[in-house]
Structure formats: structure tokens, C-alpha cells
């Protein structure tokens, strides 16, 4: 919001409405409530941790939608990445 808009008492809540709508619809359409996504994330971290070393705090999981395709996107940085960069000898 710029100075002029603030001066005119504009609040631009429509943009907020649109963002909230897009968030809620992506969850509605996948029939996956935001709280369930969090539970899924925790399960995922648990399973992955059995096989590889990850940093649970850095894991990001979200639902996205492009045109007709719903997507579950997970970003899971490996904790061992730094270790690998160590010189071999």
C-alpha cells in the first residue's frame, strides 16, 4: 500500500480475500485440511529420518495448483549435504 492510498483511507482487502480464497480452495479441492497436512509432514519427517539425515525444521510441504493439476510439493533439505562437501582425505 502506498502513501497516497493510505491517505485516501484505502485498505485493499480484496487482495487478502483472494489469497485466503486460493489457500482454502487448494485444501478443499484436495480434501486435505491444513492441520492434516501438518500431520502428514510430521509422518514424512519420521519416515525419511529412518533412511536419511534431514533437518526437520527446514522441511516445507504445501499444496499447489496449476490449471487442472493439484500438487503436493515437499522441499526437504538434506542435513548431510554440508558433510559431503568435506575434503575426502
Amino acid at each position, binding site marked *: 500500500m502506498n502513501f497516497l*492510498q493510505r491517505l*485516501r483511507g*484505502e*485498505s*485493499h*482487502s*480484496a*487482495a487478502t*480475500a*483472494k489469497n*485466503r*480464497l*486460493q489457500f*482454502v*480452495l487448494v485444501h*478443499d*479441492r484436495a480434501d486435505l485440511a491444513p492441520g492434516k497436512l501438518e500431520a502428514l509432514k510430521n509422518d514424512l519427517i519420521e519416515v525419511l529420518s529412518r533412511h536419511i539425515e534431514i533437518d526437520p525444521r527446514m522441511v516445507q510441504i504445501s499444496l499447489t495448483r496449476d*490449471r487442472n493439476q493439484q500438487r503436493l510439493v515437499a522441499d526437504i533439505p538434506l542435513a548431510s549435504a554440508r558433510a559431503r562437501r568435506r575434503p575426502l582425505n
Partner: protein
Amino acid sequence: MPAKVVTITSGKGGVGKTTATANIGVALAAEGARVVCLDADIGLRNLDVVMGLENRIVYDLVDVVEGRCKLRQAMIKDKRLPELHLIPAAQTRDKTALSPKDMVRLADELRPEFDWILVDSPAGIERGFRNAIAPADIVLIVTNPEVSAVRDADRIIGLVEAEEKGPPKLVLNRIKPEMVRRGDMLATADVLEVLAIELIGVVPEDDSILVASNHGAPAALDGKSRAGRAFRDIARRLNGEIVPFEDAESGDGLFGRLARLVRSGGQA
């Protein structure tokens, strides 16, 4: 040509389904089409009062289905437009008094005698909604530029498509150009982007709608009503006419009028 069945639905209540049904019916009949409006909101009858035909009801939809009267006997002829008819809902029954099959049979009986059968759906996603969309050839979804109404519209679009009645078309009702301009109301483009369906009408918020319902004379009968004009445009689009969308959001305030005047070279 047998009638097309157009079901007007929304998910959320209070967004203007009944108003839209009455006005589109009036607009189609005013162009000379044979129209019957069917109130499928059993137990919450309202299309009769919006159309101003409430004191002429003898029989209703459930009476027809249960064989207490002939279809013709339940049909009320609108005296203002000779080709406009209403079959009212039952007021003292509930949605279980009808089945989707009943609605299909009823519509099939009406088809040869009309050009358009408009079905006013109840709110919700249960039996009443399923009854209303069962005979539909075209489904219109009414929504308002408001988060909860658009969310429900999205849910209904999914259900309509699952019933293979889609893709439905969108009526965006109660737009306030002033609020859209200052960024405090979802614009038509926003709603279309989110819902990804075809638009068939944008109706501005208009006091004349309440006045019309006070009188029981739909705004589409009133040449001066802006909302009435928007509903007449929807009727023309249903008829296959290409009607450009009025740029409601650039508005009718002084600046909007000036801007239009400038753009049209003084022909506003």
C-alpha cells in the same frame, strides 16, 4: 424445439438464486420465449413472492408429483408476460417429498410446451440440490464477490461436474463497482481466475432489486434498473447472442462516467 432446462444454484444461501431465476425468466419471456419457472426449494417457497404471484397459488410441485392435480393446474400464468409461468414449491413439505427422478419426469413433460424451464435450486448440497440439477441441460452458479460465497461456488462446481452436468456458467451477483475500484472487493477477474469457469453475467448491487421484491415485480421488467439490465443481458447470452460485458468495475461514479465519456468520444 423442446425446452432447455436451466438450473440456478449456488451452494451458499442468500446470494440471489431466486432473484436471478425470476429476473432471467422475466427477461426471456419479454423476448417472446415460452418460459416456466420451477421453484425446487421445497419447504422454503419464495420464487412466488419475488415474482409477485403468491396470491394465485392453488396447487404446487409436490401436488403434481403425488398426482393430486394435473401439471397445467399447478402452473400460474403471469399476467404481465403471457408467456411466463410459475410452478410453485410446496411450503409445508420437505425436500424428501421429491426425488431426482420426479424432477426429470416433470421436466420431460414440460419440455415440448416451452422454450425454457428455469429451476430455482435450494441452497446446500443435499437432496434438494440434487433434485434441482437432475433435469438440467445448463447449470448457472450464482455467487457474490465474497470469500465464503466463492468457496461454496467452487464446491458446487465440483459437484455439478461430478454429475456430468458441467461445465456450469457463473453469475457474479452484487458487485459494488466503487468497492472494487478501491481494492476492497474481489473483482470479476479475480473470481474468474479462482473458479476457472465461463462467465455469463455480472450483476451490480442495486437498490432496485429490493424495491422490485417489495412490489413483486422483478427488476428485469424495469427498463431503468441496472441490475435488471444485467439480467436481460444474461437472458440474451443464454439465447446465444454475443453481448459484451459492461465494465461495471470502472463504474458509475463521476470519474467512471467521465472516463467512459472520454473513451467513447462523448457518446456516453
